[in-house]
């Protein structure tokens, strides 16, 4: 494996924004997640829970509701009073439409998917018709006295239930008038609270309305008579979310204490037909408020203030007990937030609204393997670059020479030139970026920092030549006709001749930068690409997919390499395929052409192509072999995958020079320390 000096970086002060809504789409098996800063992420549950797309957030867009309608169309609504539709192909916002009812608290699509219902701050419930390319306001329902915080549609589409403060109303969709008003008890364990907020409602096909409220109750109402049928007190704090399975035999609620309760419809006695809702399983995977839950056919999905997205498969629904039945906890984004300048040993950290540039520390001391060396020079915070405007940063990059910084928001691309004079650093903005560079999904500098590659969300790739303090547009690779798919990942070969680009689903395209034409397309694979890199000298393209497969493709020969064919023939180790975080970065050792360095959030791996591949009987995660063992033993146990799990959660790892690595970690405790306060819980014995 070789010995490295490792910079262990823990000053990347990144806190993922809390999760506000999740929406599950049964047709495509995708999950949309919106966060408190307005970011919307799309997870593909069939592709190993990979976050394949994301829409950057916006300061004024606090998303409060998210729903799928008409099959695959995604809508969101928020406190700025607008309904947005997202373009899932081009990865931008199709349009924003003001609902004219003040901040929107809830939105839900009709069971047929052709209508959209929003509940507003001023107590109005508005019905929108979904047309093929837009939405159109249809009518208002009877206005309510207070804000409509939750909505649910009867599966037949004839009635809706709306939860407000202190009451739930049932509307007739045809007439638009309220037919029942059910007052929720404010009392909480004998103490009258100020108000009772109905955080969520669910309308079942038998006419039962289930409500969850801030008094910690789950209540069942009969919508025909408007009476309370049953009440479960399940929490000491708010119950904030509810989601019902499509079969209506189970539902899930999330509480502010971080507990998720599973309710199931079970027979009263073993052979009677009478069924009853029973609280069956509590799950405590969160530490903070569970703001939202979803119920997929096989799993319970929950997310909240503690920024984790938890997917808990239901054991009785899982047919094969394979690794898919395991609990998934997704905390960090599946894209790179850090870029590194090797020459100057700089790290660029990307936050929602600013960039930070750090110079790594250095040490004069030496030690043996495993020693922690004292720093002779601390890491320097060189630059804090704040963005203008309310939009979040989509991507950022620093050039390998360290003298250029580029970043993009949803409407503009910014380029800066850095000048270093001894210890001073000066920043110069390159103005007049060309008009076609409106927003970029990925920005990359060539190895010699003379070219800038920009992947725009229209599917085109721009090549820009960088001169001293200015730039020149060289070429634009237009997407193949008929496709509008955005390119998300870029890789350039160290000699600057080849550029590889990959979208969210189609294969990887390789362009010849010298002749400015498409060279070849790597055959498409079922799973999305998570990382790309081109090896020096050999120009082999290494591609990692979300199912943990790694391919090596020779660009000059336009075919997979021998090693890659061997790997596919023999297959990866089963433990390798069971890893649940995607590989986010690949790099190469300049002096050892047989090595591929890659990492995911929980391990760092060097693949040595010269060694035999492990089969399922060998130990994958081998600790370092004892040095006093014979050479024969070492050769027998040694295999191609050298894995280190010392650094975790690992957000970034790269090779600085031949003997130095930089690892950026983000301990979970540091994130918890910056989250909003949780609910107080009494623990026995403390």
């Amino acid at each position, binding site marked *: 494996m070789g010995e490295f000096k490792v910079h262990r970086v823990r000053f990347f002060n990144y806190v993922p924004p809390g999760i506000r809504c999740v929406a599950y789409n049964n047709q495509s098996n995708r999950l949309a997640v919106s966060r408190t800063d307005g970011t919307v992420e799309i997870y593909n549950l069939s592709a190993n829970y990979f976050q394949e797309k994301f829409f950057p957030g916006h300061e004024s867009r606090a998303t409060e509701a998210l729903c799928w309608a008409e099959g695959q169309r995604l809508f969101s609504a928020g406190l700025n009073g607008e309904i947005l539709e997202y373009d899932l192909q081009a990865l931008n916002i199709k349009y924003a439409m003001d609902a004219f009812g003040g901040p929107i608290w809830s939105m839900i699509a009709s069971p047929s998917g052709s209508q959209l219902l929003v509940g507003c701050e001023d107590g109005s419930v508005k019905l929108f018709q979904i047309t093929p390319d837009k939405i159109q306001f249809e009518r208002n329902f009877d206005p309510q006295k207070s804000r409509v915080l939750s909505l649910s549609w009867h599966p037949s589409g004839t009635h809706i239930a709306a939860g407000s403060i202190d009451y739930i109303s049932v509307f007739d969709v045809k007439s638009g008038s309220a037919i029942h008003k059910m007052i929720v008890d404010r009392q909480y364990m004998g103490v009258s609270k*100020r108000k009772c907020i109905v955080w969520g409602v669910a309308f079942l096909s038998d006419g039962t309305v289930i409500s969850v409220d801030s008094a910690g109750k789950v209540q069942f109402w009969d919508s025909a008579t408007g009476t309370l049928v049953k009440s479960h007190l399940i929490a000491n704090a708010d119950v904030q979310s509810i989601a019902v399975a499509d079969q209506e035999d189970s539902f899930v609620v999330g509480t502010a204490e971080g507990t998720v309760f599973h309710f199931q419809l079970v027979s009263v006695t073993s052979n009677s037909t009478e069924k009853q809702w029973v609280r069956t399983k509590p799950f405590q995977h969160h530490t903070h408020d569970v703001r939202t839950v979803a119920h997929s056919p096989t799993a319970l999905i929950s997310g909240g203030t503690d920024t984790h997205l938890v997917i808990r498969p239901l054991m009785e629904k899982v047919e094969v007990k394979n690794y898919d039945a395991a609990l998934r906890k997704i905390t960090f984004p599946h894209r790179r937030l850090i870029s590194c300048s090797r020459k100057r040993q700089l790290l660029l950290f990307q936050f929602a609204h600013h960039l930070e540039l750090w110079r790594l520390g250095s040490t004069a001391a030496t030690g043996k393997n495993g020693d922690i060396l004292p720093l002779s020079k601390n890491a320097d915070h060189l630059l804090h670059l704040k963005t203008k405007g309310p939009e979040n940063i989509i991507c950022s990059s620093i050039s390998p020479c360290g003298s250029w910084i580029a970043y993009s928001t949803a409407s503009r691309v910014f380029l800066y030139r850095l000048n270093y004079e001894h210890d001073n650093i000066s920043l110069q903005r390159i103005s007049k970026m060309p008009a076609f560079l409106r927003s970029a999904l990925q920005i990359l500098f060539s190895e010699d920092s003379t070219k800038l590659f920009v992947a725009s969300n229209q599917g085109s790739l721009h090549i820009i030549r960088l001169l001293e303090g200015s730039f020149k547009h060289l070429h634009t690779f237009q997407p193949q006709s008929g496709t509008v798919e955005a390119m998300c990942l870029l890789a350039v070969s160290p000699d600057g001749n080849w550029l590889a680009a990959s979208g969210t689903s189609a294969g990887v395209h390789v362009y010849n930068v010298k002749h400015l034409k498409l060279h070849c397309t790597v055959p498409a694979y079922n799973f999305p690409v998570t990382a790309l890199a081109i090896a020096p000298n050999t120009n082999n393209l290494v591609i990692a997919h979300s199912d943990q497969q790694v391919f090596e493709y020779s660009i000059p020969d336009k075919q997979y390499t021998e090693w890659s064919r061997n790997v596919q023939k023999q297959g990866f180790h089963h433990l390798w395929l069971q890893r649940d975080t995607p590989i986010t970065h690949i790099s190469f050792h300049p002096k050892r052409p047989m090595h591929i360095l890659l990492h995911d959030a929980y391990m760092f791996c060097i693949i040595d192509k010269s060694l035999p591949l492990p089969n399922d009987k060998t130990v994958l995660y081998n600790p370092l072999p004892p040095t006093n063992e014979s050479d024969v033993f070492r050769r027998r146990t040694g295999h191609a995958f050298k894995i280190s799990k010392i650094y975790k959660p690992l957000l970034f790892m790269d090779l600085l020079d031949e003997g130095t690595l930089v690892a950026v970690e983000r301990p979970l405790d540091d994130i918890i320390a910056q989250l909003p306060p949780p609910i107080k819980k009494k623990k026995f014995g403390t």
Partner: protein
Amino acid sequence: MVQLRPRASRAPASAEAMVDEGQPASEEEEEEEAEHGLLLGQPSSGAAAEPLEEDEEGDDELDDEAPEELTFASAQAEAREEERRVRETVLRDKTLLKEKRKRREELFIEQKKRKLLPDTILAQLTTASQTDIKKSPGKLKEVNLQKKSEECEKGSNTKKVKVQKVQSVSQKSYVALRLKDQDLRDSRQQAAKAFIHDSLYGPGTKRTTVNKFLSLDNKRSPVKKAAAQFLNNAWGVQRKQNAKRFKRRWMVRKDENF
């Protein structure tokens, strides 16, 4: 205390009284007089100060005393002198005011010059504006130029050029909106955010602090670690500084004692 009133018209009469009585005024009153003189904007010499005081007193005392003899010529001269002084002060005030106005005007002109772009650029703009607007008839629709006077039009033309420059950088870098609506929307959004914060984190929501939460976690975990405020440097910065200061002070005190 004597009440003082400005009485410029009666100044000659008071001058008369001054000649009659050579009475020295008490110290207190003299101070009052000085203040008064300042108020009037007249030089507060002894001659101007004393008569007023005399006059006030004269109301009570001098009624029964006969006025002393005074030659007409001296009284006239005195009166003329007084009149001249008053005229002079008025004139001086006027010139001062004029000067001040002049200075301010000069400042305004200078400021205006500073705001304006250099002449060369201005010349370029005026020549460029004609051609640019012809190229983009669509944008002209946005601003209704016809009803405006020649001068206004010229001003908006230059503005138009600026807008176009921005557009060339990115097509949609600005949005036109009514500020009134935006304010209303912002305030509603703020209110909505306040509501959600209040209902989740407000009083009566049984929230603990992050520190307590972490320490409880630490207490129950098999591996005990240091408390969060010692591991996380961002926490309790103020308290740490206070502690450091206290320690330094305590050490200094100890050094002094021994």
